[in-house]
């Protein structure tokens, strides 16, 4: 457990020295979301209908943007190899890095989403459900995305290839995440959607760190 915290602290420390990288993903989120009213027109009812989907897709893309950076820097300067050779379990160090990644890339999206939801005229209840769905969903996206980032480490065309690999795997999260807000708007129960999302998160939390660690070792062979 200590190893997880040490790895977490290290990544947060590093990000703290390079704040601009974290902000870039956030700004991307804001810009992408803002493109949609410009693209489809400002009609209130339409925006209220597409709002949850747009915010979720933008969160997906913003997460995707931050994924290559998860392991690339450590791989380039050799510290990832040292982590793999450490007496402490590599998987725990990877978990620490994933936790840091979510705190830096995912959590800000969760905080920002309700604010942006107002741009789409979503009601207070809808905003609550949206925030909740992203709170459960963004860690899920980080976990799944980490596997892709590990598989494409140091590979030609990495960023685009990563998107191709990971976006299909994001779709269930998108369906239930955006779907939960739609369910709320339709007056149906939200628990079903959020429970499924939570179950997927539990499954990912169990398997993804292991799959990521194996993929990293393969990438460093």
């Amino acid at each position, binding site marked *: 457990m200590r190893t997880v915290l040490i790895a977490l602290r290290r990544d947060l420390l590093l990000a703290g020295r390079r704040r601009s990288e974290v902000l870039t993903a956030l700004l991307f989120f804001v810009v992408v979301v803002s493109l949609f009213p410009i693209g489809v027109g400002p009609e209130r009812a339409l925006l209220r209908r597409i709002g949850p989907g747009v915010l979720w897709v933008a969160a997906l893309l913003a997460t995707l943007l931050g994924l290559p950076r998860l392991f690339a820097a450590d791989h380039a300067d050799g510290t990832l190899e040292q982590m793999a050779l450490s007496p402490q379990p590599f998987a725990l160090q990877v978990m620490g890095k994933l936790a840091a990644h979510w705190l830096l890339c995912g959590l800000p999206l969760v905080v920002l989403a309700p604010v942006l939801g107002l741009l789409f005229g979503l009601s207070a209840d809808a905003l609550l459900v949206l925030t909740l769905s992203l709170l459960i969903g963004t860690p899920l996206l980080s976990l799944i995305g980490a*596997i892709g980032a590990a*598989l*494409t480490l140091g*590979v*030609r*065309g990495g960023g685009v*290839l990563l998107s*191709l*690999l990971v*976006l*299909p*795997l994001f*779709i*269930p999260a998108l*369906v*239930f995440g955006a*779907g939960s807000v*739609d*369910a709320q708007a339709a007056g149906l129960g939200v628990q079903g959607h959020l429970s499924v999302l939570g179950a*997927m998160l539990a499954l990912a939390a169990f*398997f993804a760190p292991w*799959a990521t660690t*194996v*993929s990293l070792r*393969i*990438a460093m*062979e």
Partner: protein
Amino acid sequence: MTASWRFFRFASPATFYPLAGRLQPLFMSLAVVLAAAGLWIGFMVAPTDAQQGEGYRIIFVHVPASWMAMFIYCVMALWAAAGLAFNARLASMMASALAPTGALFAFLSLWTGALWGQPMWGTWWVWDARLTSTLILLFLYVGFMALQAAIDDPRRADKAGAILALVGVVNVPIIYFSVQWWSTLHQGASVSMTKAPSMAATMLVAMLLMVLAFWMYSIAVAMARVRNIILERERQAEWVRHAVA
């Protein structure tokens, strides 16, 4: 003891190469025969559908193609997992050989779906559960092939592909379930291609024959493709130089 020893003997690319060469025409002939039978029954014998007329007959290609796309993905993942677990090069080569065929069937399913939809409902595409799931499956295939193509070292490509295929195979039921859910949730959608006409017995026979035909075809093509992969990967070996000379 003897059976398993014989199996492992064929686990070497050098011994599998001639075996694959002999099996390939056999499976291809089976495929042709079964396809001829299936298409004849489907297009000639099966009755005209009351609601959809003649156009529904494309279902005899569309549905078997969807099933094969899904089935091949699972088989591919199995081979890839075997290659990873037992460090067996040939198993990984089989997985790589199957991927393009699986992608082809996914694409065929989508294309025949569009061909079905156009005359029936005047639209080239419908976001129904099966078509959407098959589209996502196609993305998974393309991702697998792209990843293997992008990695230069063949062993690393094998292992990375195996992890991706395993992650994919775990996700495929989740994706299908999610898309099904999504489809029922947004039931404002006009048509559903999953609502195939109720099946007469002859229709089922035709479908089954087409599935078997596609299956034999897949094996035949995989045999041919794996031979090419073996030649390419093992080209430094003595026996390859003799075989190609």
